[in-house]
């Protein structure tokens, strides 16, 4: 499966044989030990035979490694029929010499043991089958039948030991299945002989939900995932669900994707979420989580991106209709093939099955946006810790593919949010919280960003309005009376508007008065100016008249003096001084 990864291994490390089984090669970091036997043990019906068959079929079809199955339980026809439902063409592979199945029938009641024997005939048959296809892989299924069919256990043990040695010497990668024992891994302690790799399969029912699990008990010379990994037998074979990012190697994109609501983009510093991040939207019932998701989807589809909407409460038709009422037309994206709905009842399947369905849907459709609405519905189908595990795996999967995921969760009204969902919080990158604000006999919606990793985000609560053209965000009114929403806010806004109007009027009036005053003063100034000018004018006239009179007097006197000097010269000097003084007075 991961050929490129395998080729990067240095020669000293254990060579591995990829199984091709989804997820198994991840948890074993490359596959089963090459050229060595691997023991697969588990109870009845846990999928041992299927694992073996898939190992062979994938080997033959994907890795050009033919295989041999020595079956002690089922005939070749039965095996072929059993796995045909998984799309494995066993008959075709047998015909094309890529697979050989030898059914070894063994029935204790038909066999009498009289003396020493060995299992050389089994070796002969195995060798024949291996040579017929040039096998690189071998499955022995299952050894229990051998023990059940033959009485002499000590011979069996020594022969099995010889068999495993024989397989190793031929550099065959073998899968040997065995029933799980009471205290030990296997009923006959076979794990003692096969010490390279032991895989334990298990299934259990918890809260009426059936879960299969796989654990790598032992893997000599290699690291491996040590946890129990849920696995499924689904349409295409076995699917193990590893926490893909055991190493947390996600690439972190700097690219941003719009939330679909400009005002919300602003709250996230202008551009919305990071691409490939996981966003949790939590809120009580009816706070608009789905609408928020629809906006996001709508914006993505408008950019030509593909989206998958996993709905666990509403059918596709319901969502489309309901979103039309807030002015979001999702149908056109459905018609264009950009949007795909997966609507299932959460309780219809176990949680792993949900995850696998989501997994395969994501792999098939290759979306850039995924919406899960709501994640909480899945809680009902599993326990809290399992849900968390599932969410973790889902988030991992989506992150690895750089898919932006928006998950809705329903919170209970009374729940202190941070407590109830703190476990989910650590998985997500951004968390939007929608809540009811009850004031003045009204229920209104508020929204704030609880966290947004790596983003400068608004710390304010906004009022969240659902209008006929979608979501609108309003600043909350914060005043001396506290936080106001809804009609209280509208009323307050109106009141403020009125107050502002009054103030504005007052200012205008003041301005008018000042204008008038200025005009009055200006008029006064003008009048005084006029008066001043008049006076200046008048005084000028008086002065001019005086000057005139003076010059007249001078002329008269000189005329008189002329005439006197003509008449009596002696009197002239006395008269002259007297006249002069009198004329000036």
């Amino acid at each position: 499966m991961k050929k490129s990864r395998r080729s990067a291994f240095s020669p000293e490390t254990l060579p591995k044989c990829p199984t091709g089984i989804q997820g198994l090669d991840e948890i074993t970091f490359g596959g089963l030990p090459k050229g060595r036997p691997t023991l697969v043990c588990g109870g009845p019906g846990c999928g041992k035979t299927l694992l073996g068959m898939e190992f062979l079929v994938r080997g033959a079809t994907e890795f050009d490694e033919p295989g041999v199955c020595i079956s002690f339980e089922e005939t070749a026809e039965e095996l072929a029929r059993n796995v045909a439902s998984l799309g494995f063409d066993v008959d075709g592979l047998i015909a094309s010499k890529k697979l050989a199945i030898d059914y070894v029938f063994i029935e204790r009641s038909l066999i009498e043991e009289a003396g020493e024997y060995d299992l050389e005939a089994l070796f002969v048959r195995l060798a024949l089958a291996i040579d017929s296809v040039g096998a690189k892989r071998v499955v022995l299924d299952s050894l229990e039948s051998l023990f059940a069919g033959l009485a002499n256990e000590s011979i069996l043990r020594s022969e099995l030991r010889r068999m495993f040695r024989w397989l190793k010497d031929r550099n065959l990668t073998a899968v040997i299945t065995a029933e799980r024992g009471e205290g030990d891994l296997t009923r006959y302690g076979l794990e003692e002989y096969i010490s390279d790799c032991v895989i334990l399969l298990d299934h259990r029912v918890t809260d009426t939900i059936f879960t299969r699990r796989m654990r790598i008990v032992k893997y000599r010379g290699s690291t491996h995932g040590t946890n129990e990994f849920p696995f499924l037998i689904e349409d295409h074979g076995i699917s193990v669900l590893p926490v893909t990012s055991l190493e947390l190697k996600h690439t972190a994109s700097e690219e941003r994707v719009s939330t679909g609501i400009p005002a919300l983009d602003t709250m996230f510093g202008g551009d919305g979420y990071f691409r490939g991040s996981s966003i949790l939207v939590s809120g009580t019932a009816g706070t608009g989580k789905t609408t928020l998701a629809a906006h996001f989807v709508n914006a993505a589809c408008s950019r030509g991106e593909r989206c998958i909407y996993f709905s666990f409460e509403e059918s596709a038709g319901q969502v489309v209709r309901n979103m039309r009422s807030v002015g979001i037309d999702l149908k056109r994206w459905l018609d264009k093939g950009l949007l795909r709905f997966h609507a299932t009842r959460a309780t219809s399947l176990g949680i792993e099955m949900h995850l696998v369905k989501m997994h395969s849907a994501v792999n098939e459709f290759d979306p850039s946006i995924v919406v899960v609405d709501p994640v909480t519905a899945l809680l009902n189908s599993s326990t809290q810790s399992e849900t968390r595990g599932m969410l973790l795996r889902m988030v991992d999967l989506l992150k690895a593919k750089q898919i932006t995921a928006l998950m809705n969760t329903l919170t209970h009204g009374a729940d202190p949010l941070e407590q109830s969902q703190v476990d989910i919080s650590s998985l997500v990158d951004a968390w939007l919280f929608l809540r009811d604000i009850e004031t003045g006999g009204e229920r209104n919606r508020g929204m704030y960003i609880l966290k947004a990793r790596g983003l400068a985000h608004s710390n304010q609560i906004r009022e969240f309005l659902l209008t006929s053209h979608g979501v609108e965000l309003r600043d909350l009114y914060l005043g001396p009376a506290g936080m106001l929403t809804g009609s209280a806010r509208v009323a307050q806004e109106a009141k403020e508007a009125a107050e502002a109007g009054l103030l504005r009027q007052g200012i205008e009036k003041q301005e008018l008065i000042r204008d008038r005053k200025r005009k009055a003063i200006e008029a006064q100034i003008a009048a005084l100016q006029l008066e001043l000018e008049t006076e200046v004018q008048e005084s000028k006239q008086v002065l001019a008249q005086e000057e005139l009179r003076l010059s007249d007097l001078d002329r008269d006197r000189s005329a008189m003096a002329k005439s006197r000097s003509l008449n009596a010269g002696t009197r002239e000097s006395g008269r002259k001084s007297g006249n002069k003084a009198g004329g000036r007075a």
Partner: protein
Amino acid sequence: MPEGAPERRRKTPEEPVGWELRLYVAGQTSESLQAFANLKRICEEHLAGNYRIEVIDLLKNPQLAAGDQILAIPTLVRRLPEPVRKIIGTLADTERVLVGLDLRPRG
């Protein structure tokens, strides 16, 4: 055991062959030789003249192992009379061989 011979017949002219036995071996191992000797002895004692033994060496004819569902070596198969019986081992335990061949009641 005579080497290599895939079959060996013993037949008396006056009686039809009632018992058809096959002994599967893999090469001439001591177990195989023991088994053949033991079988011959038992047959001579209990089925004198009325049996036929076929020895099959799986090293030479490996493809024959599947037909009779042979797993262990040596394996004696009673092909006739029916039903088919199988006895594995060196056939050293005569009692068990006789039981296995239905020559002695089970108990």
